[in-house]
């Protein structure tokens, strides 16, 4: 592409070369007087208004204090709402009135003549720069840092290494035991009963009717040492599907029990609990970013940002008819991480 013509090239002109290239700044415009500048009565009025606004603020503070003593927080939602409203309105009046009083004062009564201040270039002048360089050079020469190479190395290494005494224990301790393989396992084991979340009562297969949904935790979860961490991994969603619609991979045929399937409730996207089940479509929706899993088809992803199916918990029943796990999940639950498959 060729160079663009400049405006001077384009301007067809005849004999007005005396004109400047650019317009000239006309300078500050004339000052326009406010009413209060010329009319003392108007100024007096503004003053009274400002005084009234400050007065309003005092009323607000008084109102706040009255509300504080008369309507204290009483532990009920309604009582606290009222207390909150009255206190807040008092505080609003107290603060806002000071604000508008001051602004009104500045706008109507203080001088509104514009003033001009000169700017100076940000960079220091050449002499100052030279002097600064000279000072630094002199200091450096004085220290002899340039000549004493070993000394320079010693300073740098000492200063660079010293922070390790803070960093090493910090990094050593901050991650607990740093045992990241804990992600791989949950507390599900062979024979552990499936129990209702949150009350922990075990569930009989006969109680699970077609179409019903159970939020499940391992029985006895409360007794685990780190129950909240374990719960965060072990929660399961269980439904009974009509065997006619249930599609099962051959190797998982015996992971379900009479159409009852159990899947990890932790989304394989970034780990929200997947909790919204739609009966007709047997779709399970994650409320966080709407990944949708098909419970009738291996909990595969049908929409959304998740990439992997929810891990399945192999289940069966024990002698008394209670639903129990056959084992732990066969893969790590929840979001993906770098060494997940290692």
């Amino acid at each position, binding site marked *: 592409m060729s160079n663009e013509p400049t405006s001077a090239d384009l301007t067809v002109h005849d004999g007005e070369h005396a004109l400047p290239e650019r317009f000239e700044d006309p300078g500050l415009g004339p000052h326009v007087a406010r009413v209060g500048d010329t009319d003392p009565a108007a100024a007096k009025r503004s003053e009274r208004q400002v005084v009234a606004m400050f007065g309003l603020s005092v009323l607000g503070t008084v109102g706040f204090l009255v509300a504080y003593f008369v309507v204290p927080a009483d532990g009920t939602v309604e009582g606290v709402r009222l207390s*909150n409203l009255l206190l807040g309105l008092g505080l609003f009046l107290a603060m806002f009135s000071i604000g508008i009083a001051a602004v009104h004062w500045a706008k109507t009564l203080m001088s509104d003549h514009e003033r001009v201040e000169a700017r100076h270039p940000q960079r220091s002048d050449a002499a100052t720069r030279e002097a600064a360089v000279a000072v630094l050079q002199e200091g450096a020469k004085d220290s002899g840092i340039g000549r004493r190479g070993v000394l320079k190395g010693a300073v740098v290494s000492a200063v660079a290494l010293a922070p390790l005494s803070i960093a090493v224990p910090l990094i050593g301790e901050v991650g607990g035991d740093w045992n990241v393989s804990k992600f791989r396992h949950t507390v599900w084991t062979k024979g552990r009963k499936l129990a209702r979340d949150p009350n922990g009562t075990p569930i009989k297969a006969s109680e699970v009717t077609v179409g019903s949904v159970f939020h499940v935790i391992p029985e006895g979860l409360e007794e685990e040492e780190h129950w909240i961490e374990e719960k965060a991994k072990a929660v399961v969603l269980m439904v009974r599907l009509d065997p006619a619609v249930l599609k099962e991979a051959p190797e998982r045929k015996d992971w379900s029990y009479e159409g009852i399937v159990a899947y990890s409730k932790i989304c394989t996207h970034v780990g929200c609990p997947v909790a919204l089940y739609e009966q007709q479509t047997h779709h399970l929706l994650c409320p966080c970013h709407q990944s949708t899993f098909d419970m009738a088809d291996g909990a595969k992803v049908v929409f959304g940002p998740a990439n992997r199916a929810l891990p399945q918990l192999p289940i069966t029943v024990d002698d008394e008819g209670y639903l129990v796990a056959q084992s732990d999940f066969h893969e790590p639950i929840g979001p993906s991480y770098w060494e997940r498959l290692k």
Partner: protein
Amino acid sequence: MSPRATTGARAAGGTADYLDQRTGIGLAVKSFARKIFPDHWSFLLGEIALYSFVVLLITGVFLTLFFVPSMGVVTYDGPLATMRGQEMSEAFASTLHLSFEVTGGLLMRQIHHWAALLFMASIITHMMRVFFTGAFRTPREVNWLVGFVLMILGLAAGFTGYSLPDDVLSGNGLRITDGVVKSIPIIGSYLSYFIFGGEFPGEHIIPRLFTVHILLVPALILALVGLHLFFVVLHKHTQYPGPGRTDRNVVGYPLFPVYVAKAGGFFFVVFGVLALMGATMTINPVWNYGPYDPSPVSAGAQPDWYMLFLEGALRLMPGQGTEWVIGGFTLSLNVLVPAVVVPGLLFTALALYPFIEAFATGDKREHHVLDRPRNAPVRTASGVAILTAFFVLILAGSNDLLATHFDLAINDITNVFRALLFVAPVVAFWATKRIALGLQRKDRELVLHGHETGRIVRFAHGEYVEVHKPLDDYERWLRVQHEPRRPIEILPAEDERGVRRKGYRRDLLRQRVSRFFYEDRVEPVTPRELAAAHSHGAHDSLPTEGSAPAQIGSDGAHRGPDDEPETTDSTRIDVVHG
């Protein structure tokens, strides 16, 4: 003078003398008290950010006195009937206590949270003001970076605060964070342990967030706000263009008393408005959500608005086929791209923008007079494009609410947003650039033709013309004061002796960027053009030659001679055909 006033004056004088003898403060007062600051409503945005931060400090200190940053489990036995007997962390229990048993506690919590939202909103709009007016140009690039870091720290402050009450929503937010962190290649799992002190959720995260929230981040913000304002004083505030405003002066009002009253007063206005919001608008009613439990979650849960863009990005990314396994290691692009790469790019572009533009212009001079956004069409359009992407992501972060509210299928909405994320910024760029160039052209029209008066005059030979009133010097100056910016020209690839010139490639890149910025442009009217417009002015002759470089560039329609003005000396007359 009354005797009381004299005593007061004497006391003040004595104090001043005492202080000055020990600090030499007189010098600071002398040079500072009457410092001139220009006035404009858009300069209030940064002030709002500052004042909301002060409100955050005040209400935050109140909260720390009652909040217990502990994940120790307690059984609730407070007054709230719906919660009685439930197991919860001390953090959640203390938040309930703060809300229901400390009079004024709920007000402080609500003001604190509203102030956090206003803080972020004002930081972002302030940043937009600085961007669109070109206030980030030399010598203010460093202060732009300081402001940028302040914005990131604001996000960090908001995020860590939001997580403190340990309710279902905030706990779930942390869980999402954990999932995102784990997706980071190689170090993801370790980073998760680093943050949570072990497996999620552990018992360390609330105390850690607390320290970050009330000490680390506020201290950094405070220090950087100090640096930010120091720079403002050092550089002196920029000013909008206008008569008498130049790059070598600053026009406005003195700090004392005008700005002490206006800005000081404005602090109370902001505080008052936040108090009103805290009084009347419920925010984060954690007692409705309940304490954190890894199992339940409610639909329609939303993070605070400034986090929605991340949420939206996570929602839009298709999951199928975006998780790669390479040599046995898992690379979750479905999480990395939206949560790390996209925001990373968006933020890096924002942080580096001043340097990109400076590279394109090669301009090293100081700029203290702001640009009108129309006079920098490509910059304005780039800003609008980034904002558009940001808004699409925010909307996408609320796609479930949109779906239920407008009764649409969530999958359709998501697909539309996926397309919009790529299309909308491009359209916005194009449209904004056109509009900016159009406004500049209108400015030219106005300068050359004057105001329409609506007065129609009929000439003896039957022609109708409308009388135009020319602009006065002050009106005109606003529209012609800016320097025309043109693509830079570079030296040829080879020097006189045919040797390839060093640095040519860099120059070539610079030229490309510069063309992108300034190829299409409308230049301000020059005195010669105006004089020409006037001298054509015999109103009985139609103009024959085009004398205005209306628009230069590839994609603009060149104006024909028909548009050319004709003038008489004092009143310009335009021909109305028909």
